[in-house]
């Protein structure tokens, strides 16, 4: 009994020294925090920031979006709003074009509506990801924008179509 108590005490004292060693070793190691305004985190892969539109493979200026409105309907915070051009007009144009080229009577194509604006009100977004999950054509993805700060609400109402075009222009440069 007494021997055990004595042993426990010795082990306890030893553990105190081990603890001191742990902190001493960490004292000499380099820092692992990032000095934010002067440094930024090197890799943000896997970070799920606000959403953005995915461009088409052939035309980086145009989004994959088919303006089906699923994302806007799924959004629990109602922060997505999009408008699309009416499909009728588009269908007429298509007819004209194809008719001139081949001279045959074309089959009536199903017209695609074209996205005219895609606005995300990030103030209300809860980053749940329902829109990305439910997009039928995978036209939405997460950005890795982590350094977002601003003074007004208006700064966080993002026009994602304009953003897509800016990014395409930047890439070309």
């Amino acid at each position, binding site marked *: 009994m007494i021997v055990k108590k004595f042993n426990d*005490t010795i082990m306890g004292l030893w553990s*105190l020294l081990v*603890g*001191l060693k*742990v*902190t*001493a070793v*960490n*004292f000499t*190691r*380099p*820092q*692992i*925090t990032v*000095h934010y305004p002067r440094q930024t985190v090197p890799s943000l892969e896997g970070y799920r920031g606000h959403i953005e539109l995915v461009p088409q493979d052939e035309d980086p200026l145009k989004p994959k979006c088919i303006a089906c409105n699923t994302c806007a309907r799924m959004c629990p915070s109602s922060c997505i709003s999009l408008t699309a051009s009416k499909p009728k007009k588009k269908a007429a144009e298509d007819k004209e074009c194809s008719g001139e080229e081949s001279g045959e009577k074309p089959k009536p194509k199903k017209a695609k509506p074209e996205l005219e604006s895609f606005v995300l009100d990030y103030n209300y977004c809860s980053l749940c990801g329902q829109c990305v999950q439910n997009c039928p054509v995978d036209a939405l993805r997460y950005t890795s924008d982590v350094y977002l700060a601003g003074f007004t609400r208006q700064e966080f109402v993002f026009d994602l179509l304009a953003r897509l075009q800016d990014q395409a222009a930047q890439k070309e440069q």
Partner: protein
Amino acid sequence: MIEAIPIPLIVISVGLAATLAFIGLNALVLVYLERKVAGFIQRRPGPYEVGPQGILQPVADGLKLVGKQIFTPTGADRVLYWLAPMISIAPALVCFLAIPFGPHLQIINTNVGLILILAFTGINVLALCIAGWASQNKYALLGAARDISQSVAYEIPLLLSILPIIFMTGTFNLFDIASGQGAWPWQWYIVYQPLAFVIFFICALAETNRNPFDLPEAESELTAGFHTEYSGMGFGMFFLAEYAYMVVASCVTAILFLGGFQGPVASGWWWFLAKVYILLLIMIWIRWTYPRVRFDQLLNICWKWLIPLAVFNLLVTLLVIAI
């Protein structure tokens, strides 16, 4: 006119002023050291923004404290409430008077230097007790109650671990104790009394309310313990006093066990300061290593281990001296 003022009075006044400056400067350096060491141990930079490498951070903190509103809570005992911080810091000033910083750097060379320091550091308990009682706050009162039982308990092994040194040297004069030891580390009393050194250092941590014995101000349980209600410089004085007592404890440890101002080459106050700062760094290191002990553990360590060990150590020393 000047002849009418006795010289000891002038010496003490100048000494007190110098001590005040020393305490203030030390507090600034220690706050900076404490936060930097904490940062480095936790792998972060610590204070960084104010001045190069954050060196002006303690100054900014001090200015903030001075600029804050002095506030007395409703129902508090106004006189006692504001007396407490003063009672806390005043004895710390007196303690420095008797400490020999160097061969010629001591304000009062008195025969009872050690007793003076032990007596005056004991008054701090009273200050914390008054602060807790006068604050009209349950956390403050609990903190004060803890502080009293802790201080009373740890005073005993503290004294018992000093006694062997007293018996070996036969004096309470701190200067004599310091100069009685040799210049080299193996001539210091820590070699003869390693157990007493360990006990004394642990008790010093407990007496100065440092981690892992900082139960009177345990943040997670008592918000801030006895100084919960104090704002501005009321808190600042407690803070200063805490750091001053840390320095006093390190000074006494350095004198009793580490040869005081004596060093292998060129003895002087620089050796003393170096030893004191190494001890202070160890205190800081300990603070950022260990979690806070529970109250029953705290008292168990004292009554079941430190006091019996100190008594045993004292008896062995007495036997050796007698033979």
